[in-house]
């Protein structure tokens, strides 16, 4: 469940940032990417990505370990 929530949060935030990036290219004077209102969600996004990545890496390591043990048993 937590993985799913994290993944969707990452999708949503990354899409928002892509839209803002395009807007910032169109009108740099609006400072879409340099104000605190951008920086705080961006930090949250980075943390979420990090947590999701760690979960996936740990899961992958466990799976690899399990597969190796199974192969040994066989």
């Amino acid at each position: 469940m937590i993985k799913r929530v994290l993944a969707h949060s990452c999708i949503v935030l990354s899409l928002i940032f892509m839209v803002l990036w395009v807007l910032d290219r169109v009108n740099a004077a609006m400072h879409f990417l340099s104000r605190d209102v951008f920086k705080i969600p961006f930090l949250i996004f980075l943390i979420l990505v990090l947590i999701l990545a760690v979960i996936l890496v740990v899961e992958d390591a466990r799976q690899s370990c399990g597969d190796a043990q199974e192969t040994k048993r066989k």
Partner: protein
Amino acid sequence: MTRAPIPSTIWTPNIIPRAEKEMKKKLIRSFCLDILLVGIGLNVFALFHHVLDFSPKTEPVELVAPAAPEPSAPVTGEDAGPVPEEPERPLTWREKFADKFTDGDVVQTENAYMSENINVTFSRIEEDGIIYHVADIYITDIRYLRGGFSHGVYSARSAPISETASLYNAVVALSGDHYGGRYEGIVVRNGVLYRESRFADVCVLYTDGVMATFADEDFDLEAESEKGLWQVWSFGPMLLDNGQAMTEFKSDVQRPNPRSAIGYFEPGHYCFVQVDGRIESSRGMTLEELSQLFADLGCTAAYNLDGGQSSGFVWQGQLQSYPYKRPVYDIIYVSETIGED
């Protein structure tokens, strides 16, 4: 005879297994939900970025007030005593532009406004597929050329330019430098310093009526403050180099665009220029074209203000610019109402 019910799978024309179908449905649902959340997220972002004011607060600092415009009347009669030899004094703006002002009447026509302190001539010009508006301004005192904040206060709140112009009883108003859309950029309005962080090229209107433009790196706020600052705008770029048209500018928007800009001829004589753009009848101006326009008008300094959808121009209460009506944070205006400066 009753027939045994036929398993539904036989009648389903779609051969995709049910589980896969369910998964597809689920994926589409979650994709739609994500898009909805993106929309909500962008709206929340816009709320914090455009509407709510979280800009760092600084205490406004009152700078030097503009000098009294008129020389005192000569003393006559018995108290006068021996008449000392008067040193030659510079002409006041009222004397210098005497034919521009009335003796107290207000004369208002479709294209002109004339009173004892203000003279503004409005022109709407169409040439080479561009529509632009020019306000030629004479004033007797620098206090008649003012900066005004939307809603009457320094904040990151915007309002339609015609609303702000009417708030200040502006004869003519031009969209300002978009100070509320960012945290940086020196802001001085009507002799009060609101913000002193740097942003871009700077335009200064001194209390003696001189207007000058500076490259960001050349501007020293402390040194210039001693000369008496009446207005400081931070947007740019500067459009003239010692009265000569320029070809290179510090700006990301070089293409034809709606524009707002202020020009300076001499103390007491200024102009506002607003260019319509991004429409069939008017493509807008490049910075080079705008610079050339100010050189042709005879200005000695000129400065680009916030353009694009923010570019706005109000003449005698009527919005002249077209087609945009984006709310703006501030205006530059001319008004008979000079407040308590």
